[in-house]
């Protein structure tokens, strides 16, 4: 995966498979030089054995194949960037995937197209509530699909002018968040 936006797309698929109705993606950076990426959901969760094994690329709940690389690849990216990945989950309590990266590390992956990723997840999963939050030391930006759909009143997110406007809005917030990290 070339950047973190693709990892977000990947990990969110796990939440969707876990029958989550609300998925939150938060990217936070403060004065400690670390970027924290938290993906949390209210899906069916995992038991202790699954949590212990989920970083193993040869462990998967899928039946179409025998490997699961999503968490393994994200763990590798976090660890090679001077960070770590931690998962908290319990049956019926949802799951939190917390990946931390050292921003100044040469192997820290780029953020990628977070606005495009957010739009795509919202547009292609209309029954799901997606909340994206960007938090820096001085600012917070939130994009909530429920609020956006309510404001649109039935207009599809895929409509050309709607998509262009939303991406422009997200990009404006994202650029300010990135400025703090540069």
């Amino acid at each position, binding site marked *: 995966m070339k950047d973190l936006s693709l990892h977000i797309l*990947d990990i969110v*698929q796990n939440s969707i498979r876990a029958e989550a109705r609300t998925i939150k993606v938060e990217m936070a950076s403060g004065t400690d030089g670390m970027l924290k990426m938290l993906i949390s959901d209210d899906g069916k969760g995992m038991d202790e054995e699954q949590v212990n094994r989920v970083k193993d690329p040869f462990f998967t709940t*899928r039946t179409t194949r025998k490997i699961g690389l999503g968490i393994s690849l994200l763990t590798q990216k976090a660890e090679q960037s001077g960070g770590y990945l931690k998962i908290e989950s319990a049956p019926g309590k949802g799951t939190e995937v917390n990946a931390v990266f050292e921003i100044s590390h040469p192997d820290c992956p780029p953020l990628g197209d977070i606005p495009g990723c957010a739009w795509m997840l919202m547009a292609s999963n209309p029954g799901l509530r997606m909340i994206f939050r960007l938090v820096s030391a001085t600012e917070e930006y939130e994009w909530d699909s429920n609020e956006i759909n309510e404001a649109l009143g039935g207009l599809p997110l895929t409509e050309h002018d709607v998509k262009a406007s939303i991406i422009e809005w997200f990009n404006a917030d994202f650029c300010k968040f990135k400025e703090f990290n540069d």
Partner: protein
Amino acid sequence: MTKVKTLADLKKLREDLQEKIRLRESGEHPESLVQVKVAMATCGIASGAKDVMTFFMEELEKRGIDAVVTQTGCMGYCYAEPTLEITLPGQSPLVFGYVNSRKADEIIEKYIKKGELVDGIIPVTYQSINDNQKEG
């Protein structure tokens, strides 16, 4: 076009656009829509499925084709990613492999619009004579 920075701006945009756009009632008649499911597992995303999905979402809208484009998990064809499954109204689903923007354009123009088969179909729904005999 209204510049959007807040939810209030989105509401204003909605007022501007509602006169031009027919609100889609796809939720009531999903069986009459073309359904496109893009496999977005790790293998698919790493192979470029995001760009393929974006292409379908934009181009189907632009070309006036009533369709629902959704993500799905791994279909098991990791060797042929990006893959997608297309179901035309009243027909069996077809799976296409090695899809890029150029192949996506061909799929839209030939298969979705005209029902013409194109190269790159993964024959998952193919039933041989032996399969039919076993079922019988």
